[in-house]
């Protein structure tokens, strides 16, 4: 039971600090440190990462101006990829294996979809397009809620299944046997970061694209 719910490590002024928050801090510090180090010595690597993210986003979006959505989607992809992969460090658990982190990330996507839609089309125009056949409005609402829920649960389920399977095999044979599973969960973590970014850009593209 302690593998699904996060453990509370200590308190700061009465605020519980769980293991998720600590590993999120470690992930943030890792990203900032790597970016600061690499940007001094080897800036081509950052260009390569940016090119990869641009090609992911622009491969899904049919819009011309993907640059205005790239900061959000790129930072989502980098944070999810790092925080999925950080679970292989022995003391830490992946922040995305706690259900609160994926739900927070998918709520960011949910609100930014509507924000970009309103920003692009105007308030009345956007809601007029959302409710354009009025009898389809309940399905639209169900679709919005379920896509947000599935976006978070997909990330959570993939990461927690990788961690649990690694833990179970580690309990059976601790020596060499968990290594292929750790590799598989690393690959799945990077793939889920790609999938999260691609789906977020697809949703933003659906909200922004002109309906004809």
């Amino acid at each position, binding site marked *: 039971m302690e593998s699904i719910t996060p453990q509370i490590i200590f308190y700061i002024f009465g605020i519980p600090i769980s293991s998720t928050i600590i590993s999120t801090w470690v992930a943030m510090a890792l990203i900032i440190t790597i970016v600061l180090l690499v940007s001094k010595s080897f800036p081509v690597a950052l260009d390569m990462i940016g090119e990869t993210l641009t090609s992911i986003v622009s491969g899904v979006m049919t819009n011309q101006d993907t640059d205005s959505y790239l900061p959000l989607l790129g930072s989502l992809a980098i944070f999810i990829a790092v925080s999925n992969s950080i679970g292989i460090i022995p003391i830490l658990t992946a922040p995305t294996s706690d259900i609160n982190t994926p739900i927070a990330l998918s709520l960011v996507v949910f609100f930014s979809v509507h924000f970009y839609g309103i920003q692009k089309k105007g308030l009345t125009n956007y809601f007029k397009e959302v409710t354009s056949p009025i009898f389809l409005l309940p399905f639209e609402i169900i679709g919005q809620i379920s896509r947000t829920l599935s976006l978070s649960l997909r990330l959570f389920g993939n990461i*927690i299944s990788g961690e649990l399977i690694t833990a179970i095999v580690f309990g059976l044979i601790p020596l060499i046997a968990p290594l292929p599973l750790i590799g598989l969960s690393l690959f799945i973590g990077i793939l*889920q970061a790609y999938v999260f970014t691609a789906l977020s850009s697809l949703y933003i593209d659906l909200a922004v694209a002109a309906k004809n």
Partner: protein
Amino acid sequence: MSEMSPEFIIVFTTTLVSGIGIILGTAIPAIVEGRAVLKALDGIIRQPEAADDIRTTLLISMALLESSSIYVLLVILILLFANPLVTQFLN
């Protein structure tokens, strides 16, 4: 059968249902995803210049297909690790 405690019955049934459910919930999406990959490979062989578009669409649709098996996994994880029935019936 009268010596079975209700806790044993709940745990036994939950474990049995989890085993059957994870088999169905992984096998059926795996078959469907295999058919999707087959069709996508067919398309890539026919039109190699459309491979990038097909790959992007394939990855997104496979993530959507996979989410159903992830839901099964989450329900089974709740049943196994945080079973609500035990606390509800045994108080």
